[in-house]
């Protein structure tokens, strides 16, 4: 099946990107250090908030730790696949072409061609550990956790598609890679805390405009029993819609891609 071929190719490219990455030994060392520090960065803010106050009303320490690290992990993982700078520069200089000539889907070619944020992924291990740590302390049903993990993976796939589209649109209309970077940054910061605290306008933005909410906030609320399980189905549906719309948008927009000229 075509999807499997695309995945196999992606993994093949990853293997060589990582091989090239670790050629420099110092880089490997930095990778480990960044990873270790990553834990601190996702752990400290929430822990301190809950040690000096009662924290966010309605959310216990472990609940907020889970939310914050799920946002970090999800968006961090998206950032691993899509480094806007690389993609935009590839399009600008026409360097992307040599990847588009490969016998795989265009999206796969773009995502595989660039190594992605190999250093950043070290920090994600910390988020993952903290997610497991929070889940262990929350005493939830295994089935709920399984559905939650599935939702998280689907969320990553949907957001990768979405941000790939945003990256290309930002390049075509604004000639900017920084825009996508900033969007990723803001999404991460905002979704690390319950969307409800920002007021309805901002919550709406992160539900309908930059729909990270479907990948992080709503699934976690369902998991923790804050809202009706029907929202799990709505979220999954929302994520599928995001994926489909992004894919269609991508197909349309990539036609306007004219590299370098001449």
């Amino acid at each position, binding site marked *: 099946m075509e999807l499997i071929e695309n995945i196999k190719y992606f993994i093949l490219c990853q293997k*060589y990107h990582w*091989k*090239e990455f670790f050629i420099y030994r110092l880089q490997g060392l930095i990778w480990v250090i960044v990873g270790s520090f990553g834990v601190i960065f996702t752990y400290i803010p929430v822990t301190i908030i809950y040690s000096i106050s009662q924290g966010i009303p309605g959310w216990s320490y472990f609940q907020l730790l889970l939310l914050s690290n799920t946002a970090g992990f999800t968006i961090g993982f998206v950032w691993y696949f899509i480094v806007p700078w690389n993609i935009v520069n590839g399009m600008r200089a026409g360097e992307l072409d040599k990847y*588009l000539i*490969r*016998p795989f*889907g265009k999206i796969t070619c773009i995502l595989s061609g660039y190594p992605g944020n190999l250093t950043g992924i070290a920090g994600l291990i910390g988020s993952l550990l903290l997610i497991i740590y929070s889940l262990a302390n929350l005493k939830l049903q295994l089935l709920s956790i399984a559905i939650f993990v599935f939702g998280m993976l689907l969320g990553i796939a949907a957001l990768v598609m979405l941000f790939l589209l945003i990256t290309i649109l930002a390049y075509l209309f604004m000639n900017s890679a920084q825009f996508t970077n900033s969007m990723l940054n803001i999404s991460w910061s905002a979704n690390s805390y319950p969307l409800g605290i920002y007021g309805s306008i901002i919550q709406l933005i992160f539900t309908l405009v930059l729909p990270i909410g479907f990948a992080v906030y709503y699934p976690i609320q369902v998991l923790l029993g804050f809202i009706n399980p029907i929202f799990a189905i709505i979220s999954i549906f929302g994520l599928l819609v995001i994926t489909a719309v992004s894919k269609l948008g991508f197909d349309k927009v990539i036609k306007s891609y*004219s590299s370098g*000229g*001449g």
Partner: protein
Amino acid sequence: MNNDIVIKVDRVMKKYKVSESNSKKGLFNSFKRKKVIKVAVRNISLNIKKGSIVALLGKNGSGKSTLIKMMTGILYPDKGRIIVDELSPYNDRKKLALKMGVVLGAHGQLYWNLPAIDTFNFMKSMYKIPEKEFEKRLKLYIKMLSLKDVYKKPVRTLSLGEQMKCNFVASMLHNPKIVFLDEPTIGVDLPSKFALKEAISIAREKLGTTFLLTTHIVEDIEIADHVIVINKGRKEFDGTKKELERIFGDNRVVEIYSTNLRQINFKRYGRIMQKTGDMAKIEVKPSMLKNKEFLKMLNSRHVFDYRVSEPHLSYVLSKLYKSFDKKK
């Protein structure tokens, strides 16, 4: 469609939207940029036969790169259609990619910090080349291009010529039917250029591979049997080297050696191309070679040697380009 023809381009047109930077001074004027529509390819048609080696010539901005990109399925023609090996490049990009090879730039698809063999293995996995076949082909290419000491060193430590040869091998390992080479010999040393041309000839003979070479280096054309010249989005010439010479290089170049050049009025016979020391090079019309006066001069005591030759291809091309500028 003729079985013989592997690439067919039919009345193809492609436009771009380009933002021209505003040259006016001032802080805020740099925000305003005009969007201009540029036509990169204007109604081009051509046919490329299977197993031919075609040189695609054109200055930068002539549209040749755009044409190649449409042939490889990266860009979509606004009008007209392209058929490559009975497939539509844009719609069947993935299928076509399996039969296509691309040599872009010096190090192209090679992993910069890894030895070339890693890229070769990558190609093997990507194109699913059977192990035994892969070993056989690799051995052949390494021998053909003298890469024995080269392919195990990191690509970034290799010379441009070595990089280009490895890049070529990487694109050939899966036995593509058509290979596109984009300015492959820029900055490359002479021996490597020869080696590449040898390899291309052999591949065409043994495998029937069709090669399409974009270049503006004249020596690269020597290997081609067919030349296509693109200028300002239009096809200006499409034929063999011989035809090119015949149309624009009818004239002959005569090198005259004399100890007494000043005695001879060369302007009577043709255009003076060069005059150094004891040699004068002039371009004459073919009829001049039968001209009594001219022959008398050549055989006079002033001249101790002379040579008649066909004009060099670079000269032919420079005349060709001059004719383009005269047109508009």
